[in-house]
């Protein structure tokens, strides 16, 4: 079967959906420029050749405008796929996303819907504090938004297609080091086999990346890879790790998580975002309230420290949760 990078898989999802449905279009900065890059991470490369510059719509540098225009177009029956070049810029669009995209259905008592996708690249990648944040957690707090975070090419394609067809605003998070675009040493290989045949991945269905019996680790995006390599090492110590990638944080596959924790009796939550108020806190509260009696030890969170992301590689590497941090947390939870 074909192995695609995340960037290729996303591009294919967009292409298929744009062919299938003429209301689907892309809107963002530097996405369709001739001789350009196809967006900051090549996802829309070549699409303007097939769909033209109205459906691959290049914008001024105006994030609030992009998000708001997407909301308006969605209200009138279009299905925009908007993007920001880096997740840190999403803060400029917050008002439109939170006050309009998320609330217009509710405020109109169900008369309106906002079927839009907002693509948001996240993660530290050696670029300093304003091009590094993982911003998923801000959005799980907002009723009315769905939150998706694929960790590999197969999931990226299936989830993006579902996101495009969803009648609600979907915040779609992509990790910069997982795109698999050429040229960066730090890239993590997130390629996966992607079938030629069409498939969709429903929201709210977690993926169990690895079966195990001693401890459940919940992780998303790049952290899935950190946890997988930690689990390999822990196996040598006789610790059997079950890894769950929720794939969507809203809606959350609570059943799979609870079933796993009730089996392993130990839980560790890992995300790249800093600790306080991260989605790990919500996950921890959920597990503690629903499976408290099953836990043999307090659960642990492995997250970045509560600081902005520093530039120097030695500091950034320390800042981003690593394999050693995961191993340490698992040993502690297991009482080692």
């Amino acid at each position, binding site marked *: 079967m074909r192995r695609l990078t995340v960037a290729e898989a996303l591009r294919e999802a967009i292409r298929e959906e744009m062919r299938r449905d003429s209301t689907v279009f892309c809107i963002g900065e530097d996405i369709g420029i001739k001789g350009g890059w196809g967006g900051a991470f090549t996802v829309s490369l070549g699409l303007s050749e097939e769909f033209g510059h109205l459906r691959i719509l*290049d914008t001024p*540098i105006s994030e609030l405008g992009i998000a708001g225009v997407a909301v308006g177009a969605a209200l009138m029956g279009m299905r925009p796929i908007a993007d920001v070049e880096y997740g840190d*810029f999403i803060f400029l669009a917050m008002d439109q996303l939170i006050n309009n995209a998320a609330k217009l259905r509710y405020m109109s008592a169900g008369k309106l819907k906002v079927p839009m996708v907002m693509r948001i690249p996240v993660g530290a990648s*050696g670029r300093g504090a*304003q091009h590094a944040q993982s911003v998923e957690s801000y959005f799980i707090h907002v009723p009315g938004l769905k939150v998706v975070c694929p960790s590999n090419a197969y999931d990226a394609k299936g989830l993006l297609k579902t996101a495009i067809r969803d009648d609600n605003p979907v915040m779609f998070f992509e990790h910069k080091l997982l795109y698999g675009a050429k040229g960066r040493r730090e890239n993590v290989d997130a390629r996966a086999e992607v079938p030629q045949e069409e498939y969709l991945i429903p929201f709210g269905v977690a993926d169990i990346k690895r079966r195990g019996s001693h401890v459940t680790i919940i992780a998303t995006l790049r952290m899935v890879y950190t946890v997988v390599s930690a689990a390999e090492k822990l196996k040598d110590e006789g610790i059997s790790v079950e890894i769950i990638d929720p794939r969507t944080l809203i809606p959350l596959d609570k059943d799979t998580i609870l079933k796993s924790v009730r089996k392993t009796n130990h839980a560790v939550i890992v995300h790249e975002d800093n600790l306080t108020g991260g989605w790990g806190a919500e996950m921890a509260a959920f597990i503690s309230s629903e499976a408290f009696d099953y836990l043999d030890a307090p659960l642990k969170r492995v997250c970045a420290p509560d600081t902005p992301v520093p*530039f120097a590689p*030695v500091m950034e590497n320390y800042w981003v949760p690593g394999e050693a941090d995961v191993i340490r947390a698992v040993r502690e939870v297991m009482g080692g």
Partner: protein
Amino acid sequence: MGIPGDKLIKMYRKMILIRNFEDRVHRLFLSGEMPGTIHLYQGQEAVAVGVCANLRKEDVITSTHRPHGHAIAKGVPVKSIMAELFAKTTGCCKGKGGSMHMGDIEVGMVPAIAIVGGGIPVATGMALAFKMKRLDRVAVSFFGDGASNEGAFHEAINMGSIWDLPLIYVCENNLYGASTHVSKVMKLKDIAERASSYGIPGIVVDGNDVISVYKAAKEAIERARKGEGPTLIECKTYRRGGHSRSDPGQYRDKKEEGIWLAKDPISRMHKNLIKMGILTEEKGKGIENEVKARIDEAIEFAQKSPSPKPEDVFKDVFA
């Protein structure tokens, strides 16, 4: 003309310093010796230099993702800029900032703000503080053509205008925001026209002519100091290289590129100075060599400087 010869030579030297600095940094970056990402300033030197030549140390600037030239022009020591690029503790941000957050408030430069447009309200606020505290200081915001499409630009300039704040807005129109040509994202010919919406003067200058930039900035800064409010100065210019590190710039029209590269601000200033009898070829060579030696020294300093400790991440989160 009225600009003393030694001032002109000083500006020329600064431009040469920026050009050589950026050329070296580019090579260090491509060879993998330097971490991170970079946006270089070659081609736009006359803007930073022409504006900053009018500023005092206590005046402040904000900058962008493309800040090395502004930093050098405002007087951030070259060694500490280089060390920052190498992510060392001797850098102006102790390795926490990197290329896109270059700056040192000790010489009046806030760490560069890499969120496009983000520096414009900040500069406006600094000018507000100067007014409230009755200080004889001005603020300057450098930003690109692309930034003038952000809401931040419009909101901030309107506020600067209604409160007659002591500042200038310097738009470096290099015809592109990343890969996007300015004509695709605005219908106006001149960004300076936007000033009229907010009732302040908007001026177009040849941003590749340091003397024109200097004069326009001088007048605007004098107005600002007198309490007559801000000015928007649009400097028409061009970046010689790609948008960022290894961008080959294939979205640019070759003819356009040729025209602009021929208007290089440094060779123009060189010719001008020779014509004026202020510079000789020999003296020019001397400046070039002296600047190169300074950069060599900065690189050596940076490479020998210590790296931060991982635990330094915890420092300076709160005051």
